[in-house]
């Protein structure tokens, strides 16, 4: 095993349930010490993929490797990976410490070792004093930590987490996100996390894989996935975005120019080698990349300026989201920080506004 052997990897993995293709010829590599987050909507196959990694589901085709060793036919109880279940799956008839000790007992370790490691682990997840409680007597957050301790105490090569934060309320979720990252940092175990929550994915991940219909559509750092979505699906699924559809008029090293129906001026975008003149294309712009103003901003090279009418606005406290209607009927989402108090807010419904953004902050996609 060399230093850059992935801890867990799959080659050409597929799983079908009847007519429904859950995982479609999928290959992935998870490196040592990273948090690899699989992000996708419900039914995209992400949980099936995780269950195949754990050995709880047999793939139809393809192989799974852990530290370079083929484990495809290894049953779950012999794989050096552990899983934290979405429901936590705490054994209701066992105390907290018995739950955590379960995996070590199955390894046949000496009693004293088990006791020490359980104590150490419970200390790490801050559950001292609750050893004797039954799962039914714990709060949601405590249960989550027992499940985490139980999966980590066996020192797995990879920890698989199925929607680890979904059952927690919002406040606790934010706090636990940071705790999870810290714990992972301390222990150096690789995490594979499955989630449908893009915010959770963004904060946890070293790398995100966006999954759709059994395939990875894009794999990259959170920044890459957010700032440079590879497809229309990623652009729409991760964060919100406004898409302008049109035909490429020019494509060169300094950028592309796209003509969109209903918009007078052609829209420029960053260069794209894949798009030739005449091809259909999309320009995607994130709401926070757009500036709103009552007066027409000064024209500058590479700056896009459009005019529209505020159709709708939603106040979120820290920021507001405006939906602006262009003359051609297209709706554009714009998000603005509320740096001044709302009472002094100047933009109102039905007001004419100018939208502007830098050419480089837009993304050009194949249509």
């Amino acid at each position, binding site marked *: 095993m060399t230093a850059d052997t992935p801890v867990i990897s799959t080659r050409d993995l597929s799983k079908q349930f009847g007519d429904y293709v859950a995982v479609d010829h999928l290959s992935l590599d998870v490196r040592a010490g990273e948090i690899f987050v699989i992000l996708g909507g419900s039914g995209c196959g992400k949980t099936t993929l995780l269950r195949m990694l754990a050995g709880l589901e047999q793939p139809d085709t393809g192989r799974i490797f852990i530290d370079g060793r083929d484990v495809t*036919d*290894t*049953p779950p*109880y*012999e794989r050096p990976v552990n899983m934290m279940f979405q429901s936590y799956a705490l054994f209701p008839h066992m105390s907290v410490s018995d739950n955590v000790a379960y995996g070590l007992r199955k390894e046949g370790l000496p009693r004293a070792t088990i006791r020490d490691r359980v104590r150490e682990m419970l200390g790490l997840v801050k559950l001292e004093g609750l050893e004797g409680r039954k799962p039914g007597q714990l709060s949601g957050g405590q249960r989550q930590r027992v499940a985490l301790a139980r999966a980590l105490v066996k020192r797995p090569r990879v920890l698989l987490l199925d929607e680890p934060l979904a059952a927690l309320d919002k406040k606790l979720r934010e706090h636990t996100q940071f705790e999870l990252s810290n714990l992972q940092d301390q222990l150096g175990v690789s995490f594979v996390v499955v989630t449908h929550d893009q915010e959770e994915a963004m904060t946890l991940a070293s790398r995100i894989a966006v999954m759709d219909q059994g395939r990875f559509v894009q794999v990259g750092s959170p920044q890459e996935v957010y700032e440079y979505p590879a497809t229309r699906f990623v652009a729409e699924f991760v964060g919100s975005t406004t898409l302008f559809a049109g035909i490429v008029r020019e494509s060169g090293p300094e950028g592309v120019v796209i003509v969109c129906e209903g918009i007078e001026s052609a829209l420029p975008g960053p260069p794209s080698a894949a798009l030739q003149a005449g091809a259909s294309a999309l320009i995607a712009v994130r709401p926070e990349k757009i500036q709103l103003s009552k007066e027409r901003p000064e024209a500058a090279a590479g700056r896009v300026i459009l005019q529209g009418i505020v159709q709708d606005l939603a106040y979120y406290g820290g920021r507001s989201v405006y939906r602006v209607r262009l003359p051609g009927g297209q709706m554009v989402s714009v998000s603005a920080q509320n740096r001044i108090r709302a009472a002094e807010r100047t933009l109102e419904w039905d007001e004419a506004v100018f939208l502007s953004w830098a050419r480089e902050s837009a993304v050009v996609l194949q249509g």
Partner: protein
Amino acid sequence: MSRSQGVNGQRLFRAVTSGLPTLWLCVFFLAPFALVLKISLADPVIGQPPFTPLIDATGSLHLTFDNYRLVFGDSLFLASYLGSLRIAALASLICLLVGYPMAYAIARTPQPWRTLLLLLVMLPFWSSFLLRIYAWMGMLSTHGAFNTALLTLGWIERPLALMYNDFAVYLGIVYTYLPFMVLPLYAVLEKQDPDLREAAEDLGATPWRVFMDITLPLSLPGIIAGLMLVFIPAVGEYVIPTLLGGLDTRMIGRALFDEFFVNRDWPLASAVATVLLLVVVLPVMIFQRGRGGAHP
């Protein structure tokens, strides 16, 4: 090595879990029906076993439909089938009428009293069925509790014939199977969200309308389950008509039992059983399957 061992272990475990009961039921439940069918096509003889083999010593097949001709031709068997269906159906309806208000009251009782009331419904079910029928014999007999009470009150001058008639059979069936009606009804009524009733009241429904529009329709699965749970065992009932019924109480379970034990005509009894299976049991199973496998 450990690899294949592991997967084989899982496979073996699954095979044992499903295979063992399947095997048992195939041998002791499914195979016997084939034998019933087979013997219903044989001739009765005096001997052990008291029927002719289908394939005789010369190897030729010997089938007879005489037994079926007898089952359909004899008005006694026809009367028994119809009597069973009538008594079972009517007794199920009586159970529903008696049991619904009981289940309703129990479901509306606050805990922990609800558990107690429920246990009181189940308690007779755990004690011997035969002895409970016997208890009614003590109630209904000429010198039984009813007649004694009525005579003492002076409401009657001579003891009434309460036993050895259809009335006693209905009473016995309702008494025995009432818990089977109350329990599923209770289960659906207890699960009903009280918000639904409050929402209906809020929208202007009177208590009676709330019952008719919300409670009753939502308890339909329980009603059907209860009716089936009473009807099915009642159709094949043997003990109750034998102990409480009159000589003219015709029920098919009793006819079959007597044909087998009294007349020792095994082939005819098998034919009676086959017809009962096809006419009553099979439709019930198909009906239950049609309801999406809902079980008691």
